[in-house]
C-alpha cells in the first residue's frame, strides 16, 4: 500500500489530534478536520488539494464552507485501507456528523513515512516547542486555532470568495 504525499500528511494530521491519551479515546469531528485541512491548504502544507464552497452542516446549522473534495476522497481511501476509523454521530438537531480517529494500523504506517512529510505538517500544526494547537469554535461559528504560546488564528473556512459573473434570464 502506497499513499500519496498529501494522504500521508492528512493521516499524520489526523493522528496528531486523535492519538489516545491514557484510557481516553480521542476523535476529531469532521468540521474541525475540514478547518484544519483548509488551513493546511492556505499554509501550503498540502500540495495538490484545493477547496470549493459547499453547503454543509456546521455546528448545528447549514453554512457555506470551503471544503476540499480531494481531501474528502483521501479520507475515504484512508478509511478503506483501515488506517482511520469513522464514527457517524447524530446531533441533537437530527443531522449527522462524522468523526475520525487513527487506527493502530495507521499508527504503524506513520512510523515508516519520510520525516520531511511529518515536518511539513508540524511546521503549521505542531510547531517545535509550541505543540499542537487547540481548535475551538467562536460565537459566530468560526474555527480558531489556539496555540500554547497564546497565538490565535482565525480559520476563514466560512468565507467563500465572491466571483464575478453575468447572468441573463431564461423563461422556461
Amino acid at each position, binding site marked *: 500500500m502506497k499513499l500519496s504525499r498529501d494522504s500521508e500528511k492528512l493521516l499524520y494530521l489526523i493522528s496528531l489530534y486523535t492519538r489516545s491519551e491514557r484510557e481516553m479515546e480521542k476523535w476529531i469531528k469532521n468540521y474541525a478536520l475540514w478547518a484544519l485541512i483548509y488551513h493546511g491548504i492556505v499554509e501550503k502544507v498540502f500540495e495538490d488539494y484545493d477547496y470549493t464552497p*459547499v453547503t454543509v452542516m456546521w455546528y448545528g446549522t*447549514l453554512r*457555506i464552507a470551503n471544503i476540499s*473534495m480531494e481531501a*474528502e476522497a483521501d479520507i475515504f481511501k484512508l478509511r478503506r485501507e483501515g488506517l482511520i476509523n469513522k464514527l457517524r454521530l447524530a446531533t441533537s438537531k437530527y443531522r449527522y456528523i462524522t468523526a475520525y480517529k487513527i487506527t493502530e494500523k495507521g499508527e504503524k504506517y506513520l512510523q515508516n513515512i519520510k520525516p520531511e512529510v511529518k515536518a511539513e505538517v508540524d511546521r503549521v500544526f505542531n510547531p517545535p516547542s509550541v505543540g499542537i494547537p487547540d481548535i475551538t469554535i467562536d460565537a459566530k461559528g468560526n474555527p480558531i486555532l489556539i496555540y500554547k504560546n497564546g497565538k490565535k488564528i482565525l480559520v476563514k473556512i466560512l468565507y467563500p470568495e465572491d466571483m464575478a*459573473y453575468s*447572468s441573463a434570464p431564461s423563461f422556461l
Partner: protein
Amino acid sequence: MSLDKLARIIFDIIEDTSRLMSSILSLYQRRILNIIYPGYKEEGFERRKYTVVISEKVKIEGKELSSEKMLDLLLKEPYVNEIKQIVGPIISYAKKDGLCLIDGSYGLLILGKVKNTELLSLYASIKSLEIFLEDLLVYLWMVWEKLGDTRKIVLKGDIKELKKMRVQLVTILSDFTLLKSIMGTITYSLDRIDSESKSISDDELDSLDFSTVFHAVKNRCRTIGDLFESIEREIDGLLMVINTHIEEALDRLNTLTFWLSIIFGSFGLGQLAVAIAPWFMGPIESTIVSSIATLLPIILGVFLHFGGGKAR
C-alpha cells in the same frame, strides 16, 4: 471555464439568489424559511438548494472529449473530485442518446446538447421540493423530541414550570400552524408538476427517473401530513394536561379559602360569645365558654386541615 471556477460561481449564485429572493418574499414566507433554516438571512448561513448545470462540451487539457469517453473519464480520479464540487456526492449517472447525466445530492450535471429544458425544469423543482421536505421532516422530528421533554416536565406538575411550558407550547403551535398551511401549496405544486410532466414526452431525459422521484416526494408529503396530525394531537394533549394541573391548583386554592372563611367565622362568633357571656353567666362558666370559643376554631381548623379538606 474550469470546474473549480464553475463551483465557485455556482455557490456565489446560490448566495446571491438567497439575498435576491429575500427582498421579494413576504413576511409570511420569510418566517416559514426562518423556522426551517434558522439564521438563513445572515451572511454565510444558507439553505440547501439544487443546481442544474448544462454543458455542451467538455475539454480536458484543451482536448474536447467525445460523448462515449466522457462519462468513463469524468467518473474516475482526479476528475470525479472536481465533478463532486459541482453536484455533491454522486448518486447516479446515465448515458443516453449522446447525453451524459451525473446526478449528485445537491445538483445535476448534464453534458451534451439538451433539446428540451421543460422536463429538466420540472425535475429541478421536484428535487428542490424533496430537499425542502427533508429539512421540514428534520424540523418536525426536533419538535417531536422537544415535546417529549416537555411531557416529562408537565407530568411532574410544578406550577411554575407549567407556565413556562405553556408559553413554549403556544410558540411551537404558532410556528406549527404556519408550517401546516404550506402543505396545501406543496400539494398544489405537486399536482401542477404532475399535470405538466404528463404533457411532456422527452425520451432524452427519461434516465432522470422523474416519476420515481415524484412518487417518493408525494409519499414523503403524506408522511409529513400524518406527522403534522400526530404532533398537533400531542400538543393539544399536553395543553390539556397543563390546564388540568392548573385547574387542580385553583381548586385547592378555592378549598383553602372556603375553610379559612369557616374558621374565621367561628372565631368571630367565639369572640362574640366571650364578650357577652359575663352578662348571663358566672365567672367559671364564662371562662369555660371563652376557652371553648377560643379553642373551637383552632380544633375545627386542625380537623378540617387533616380530615375535612381531604374529604372535600
